[in-house]
């Protein structure tokens, strides 16, 4: 299993929030991550990431007026790395139970403090053999643009497939069916994934 990248700090059935072990080291938008819940592995797609102060009452202030390089700020203020944190949101899109992949929501949410792992490309390829997860993605109420998330997810997944173009065309056709009445959304997504 690949190395853990963070830990769940808030979870619901449809999504979970995780904190990165390293500042500024969130997984890319749209990448597939997983969390263990007993015998079940829950899969999520990274839908949003943010870096902010640990204490909501103490917002960061600008410190680089005298510095030539950005890195110098962190070097001269080593406490900053402890006062800031990077979090990312993941949308739950399926799970694995008893060895079989299921492209629908798991029975229970991810436990808080469970480790979050980035999926291996082989795993991504396996998970994206079927496009059933797309319906969760396109219908999710996501902060910001859901279409961006769908496009990012497909772009990343396509990298794991041998025939990228064929994968994206098949995905596009699935989207065309799902977004039958929403032509502008379909166009927006297709433009973001076209090869």
């Amino acid at each position, binding site marked *: 299993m690949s190395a853990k990248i963070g830990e769940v700090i808030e979870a619901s059935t449809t999504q979970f929030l995780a904190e990165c072990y390293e500042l500024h080291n969130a997984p890319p938008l749209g990448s597939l991550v997983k969390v263990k819940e007993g015998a079940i592995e829950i899969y999520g797609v990274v839908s949003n990431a943010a870096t902010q102060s640990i204490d909501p009452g103490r917002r960061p202030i600008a410190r680089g007026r005298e510095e030539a390089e950005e890195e110098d700020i962190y070097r001269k203020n080593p406490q900053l790395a402890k006062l800031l944190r990077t979090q990312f949101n993941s949308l739950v899109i399926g799970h694995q139970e008893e060895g079989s992949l299921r492209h629908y929501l798991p029975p229970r949410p991810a436990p808080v403090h469970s480790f979050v792992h980035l999926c291996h490309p082989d795993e991504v390829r396996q998970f994206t053999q079927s496009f059933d997860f797309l319906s969760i993605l396109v219908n999710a109420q996501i902060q910001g643009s859901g279409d961006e998330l769908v496009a990012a997810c497909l772009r990343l997944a396509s990298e794991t497939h041998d025939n990228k*173009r064929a994968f*994206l*065309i*098949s995905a*596009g*056709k699935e*989207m*065309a*069916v799902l977004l*039958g*009445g929403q*032509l502008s959304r*379909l*166009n927006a997504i*297709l*433009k973001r994934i*076209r*090869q």
Partner: protein
Amino acid sequence: MNEESLVTPEGQGKRLGIVVAGSLTKGMEVKLDAAISVEDMAVGRYVVIEGEKQRFFGMITDVSLGAIDQKLTVTPPDVSDSFIAQVVAGTSTYGKLQVVPMLTIGGSAISLLEGPQPVKTVPPHFSVVRQASEQDVEVIFGQEDQRHFYVGTPLDMETKVCLNLSEFVKRSNGLFGKSGTGKTFLTRLLLIGMVQKNTAVNLIFDMHNEYGWEGSSEDGRKVKALKQFFPSKVAVFALDEESSRRRRVSTDYIVEIGYNEIEPEDIELLRETLNLTQPSIEAVYQLAQEFGDHQWLESALALKGGDEARQLLSRLNIHESSYRNLRRGLDKLGRLPFLVPHARDNSVQRLLEYLDRGINVVLEFGRYTDITAYVLVANVLTRRIHAQYRERTERAMGEDAAPPRPLVITIEEAHKFLNPEVARQTIFGTIAREMRKYNVTLLIIDQRPSGIDQEVMSQLGTKATYPLDNEKDIDSVLAGVSGKSELKTVLSKLESRQQALIFGHAVPMPVVVRTRDYGSAQSYRDFGFQEAAELKAKAEQEIKDLWG
């Protein structure tokens, strides 16, 4: 995505799509799979719909485009990008087929034995639609045998479409199409079929000398005709000995018609071509009453002006102008060289003798391509033959003997004999309507089917039609056929030559055929005819084999 389902199981055609809507009367709507291009589809082609319990055999009658969202048609996606074009093809936009199911093939052993049945229901939603395979077409249209004659192939296929000739000759049939589309070729094919399979004896009124010895193709090539293939089974009768001699056709008999054989009804039929008025037709009947049915023409032509004629006219109450009109027409007849006051021989009797012996007769008109001569001769001869056949069939029924051999009379320019004004009076109208009982049927060839009496058209058993331009003609050919509007689409899309729509008794369902090749050495061999040189070589080989 559905790559697996596109794999063709053995003996099955390629998968085209699925049924999404439809009705028995309007046909089924089929959504094409994304992998199938609409451009590969063609109206008139066959498809098989796999129902749950039976398979439906149908024909594509329309191809159209559909879109999942009407907005797409207003703001089209950026299809200059091949990726987007590929994505929307078959999903947001897709091809549609209109398929009319025609026959069903049951799945059980019993229904397989019964063969294809007319369709009475429709396949359920989402039934898979495939292109008909060669085997499917063979199951429907049979193989060539003693009764089935191979007329052509379906569009884009190599399978044979066979016509059931024994069904064909049971009823009168029609062959229609614009001039130059291939009517003569198909007629020649059908005649060869009937002679070869011995299903009927033929009498052909050959207006343009196409069916006897040789004919010509559109590109001016000479093609062999009946006599060259069946020298012992075909006799060429001629009206114009000189023309035959010039064309180096050996004729078996020169036909002459005596004045005594022309009856008033014959003149009535010629009313239009001789430009006669109604009173002058009445005058003919009066003259016939005066001089007798067999003598009137000779007497009328012998009438000179003067007192005698005037007295006769006033006695018969014939107006002077009517007489002049009639006289002009009769003089035109008198100028026809094959029309003589007293025929040397009884042509009709001779003709019947040939037909009795099972010899097919082609009557060549030579230079007399004038419609007057054609209508007159065809009518005079056919009337007599009709009477004979009728008498013989009735006798056969009474004595429980074998009825006379089925006779098929081929006439061209049929609207001249069968137009609504004369169809009720002419012998051809009678034959078309009822002569099936007496074993005489017609093969009607015409380019203006709308000119033919509707009652006659409705009695035709099998119709074959090449493209027609005139709306009235199309309506008249397709009158009373189920799925008429769909067939109309098919008919309008036929290529201008060699493609014909055949429907009726001799075929299980309407079929578009590309008529088989005719005119090349190979095509003659396909009929089973061998060239003289080949025959000689074969004979020599056989002698060698025999004697070592």
